[in-house]
C-alpha cells in the first residue's frame, strides 16, 4: 500500500525546476499560450488537474482546440495561430 500512495504523491507533485519566457513564436509556444490563457502552466499540469490522458487538438495544425478551466467552464481556440507577436513575451516555458 505504501508504494501506491508514494506513487500517487509523486505523480501529483511533478513541478517544474525552472521557467523562462518565450522569445520567438513556435507551435510549442502557441500551445503554451493556450494553456496559460486557461489558467494552467502547460499540458503536464492540465493533465494532472483534469485527470485526462489526451487534450483535444485541431487535426490540421495540432494546436489545442478545447480546454476545461478550473471553474469547469470551457475555452475554445481557433484552428489558426492566436498568440500574436506582442503576446509571445508573456508566454512562460517551464523546464522539468
Amino acid at each position, binding site marked *: 500500500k505504501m508504494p501506491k500512495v508514494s506513487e500517487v504523491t509523486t505523480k501529483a507533485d511533478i513541478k517544474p525546476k525552472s521557467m523562462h519566457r518565450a522569445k520567438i513564436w513556435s507551435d510549442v509556444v502557441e500551445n503554451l*499560450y493556450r494553456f*496559460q*490563457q486557461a489558467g494552467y502552466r502547460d499540458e503536464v499540469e492540465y493533465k494532472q488537474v483534469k485527470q485526462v490522458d489526451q487534450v483535444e487538438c485541431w487535426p490540421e495544425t495540432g494546436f489545442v*482546440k478545447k480546454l476545461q*478551466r478550473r471553474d469547469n*467552464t*470551457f*475555452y475554445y481556440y481557433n*484552428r489558426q495561430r492566436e498568440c500574436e507577436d506582442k503576446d509571445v513575451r*508573456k508566454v512562460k516555458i517551464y523546464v522539468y
Partner: protein
Amino acid sequence: GFFVLFCFVFSLFKVRGPPPAGSVKQRPAKHTAFRKFYERGDFPIAVQHECVGNKIAWKVEIEELDYHYFLPLFFDGLCETEFPYEFFARQGVHDLLEHGGNKILPVVPQLIIPIKNALNLRNRQVLCTTLKVIQHLVVSAEMVGEALVPYYRQILPVLNIFKHMNVNLGDGIEYSQQKRENIGVLIQETLELFERYGGENAYINIKYMIPTYWSC
C-alpha cells in the same frame, strides 16, 4: 433681353434637386432578442478578463448546444454596438461557427433575417463586423456557400450601396485596410468568397444584384 428675363424668372423659382434619399444614413437600432436573453441569463457564457486578452468562457460544451436555437440568437446580437452585448455576440458567433461543423448548414435559412437586419442598420462598425461574420460563415462548413445563393437578393442590396466606399488618399497609407475596417475592401472580399464557394450559379446571381462586380 430674353436671357436676362429668363435668369430673373429662374432665380425666383429656383429648381432644387431631389432631397437626399438617405441610403447611407444610419438607422436607429432597436434592442435585440439577444440582449433580452442575455439579461435574463439564458446564455451559457461568461466573460473572462485575462492578462493576455478577453475570451468567452462557455458554461456548456458547444457540441451539446442546440444550434437551431442559439446560432440565430447570437446572429441577432450582431446589431448591438454596446459592451458587453457586442463582444459576446461577435465572439460567440465566432466560436459557434469555428466549432459547429455539420450543425451549421441546416440553420443557414434562419440566419438570413438577422444578417439582413444587421446590414440594414447601415452602421459602419456593424457592417464591418457582419461582413467578417459572413466571410467566416461561408467557409465554416461544406455547402454553406451554395446554401446562401438563394438569399443573395436579401443580403446583397446593402452591399451594393457601400461597395464603392473606398477612400482615395493618393499616395497616402490607408490604415483601415490593414486593420480590416475598410468597408469597400471587406465587401469585395466577401463577394469573392461568395463566388468561390457558391458553386456554378453564384457569379450570375451576384452580378444580377451587383452589376459592377467582376469575377475574381
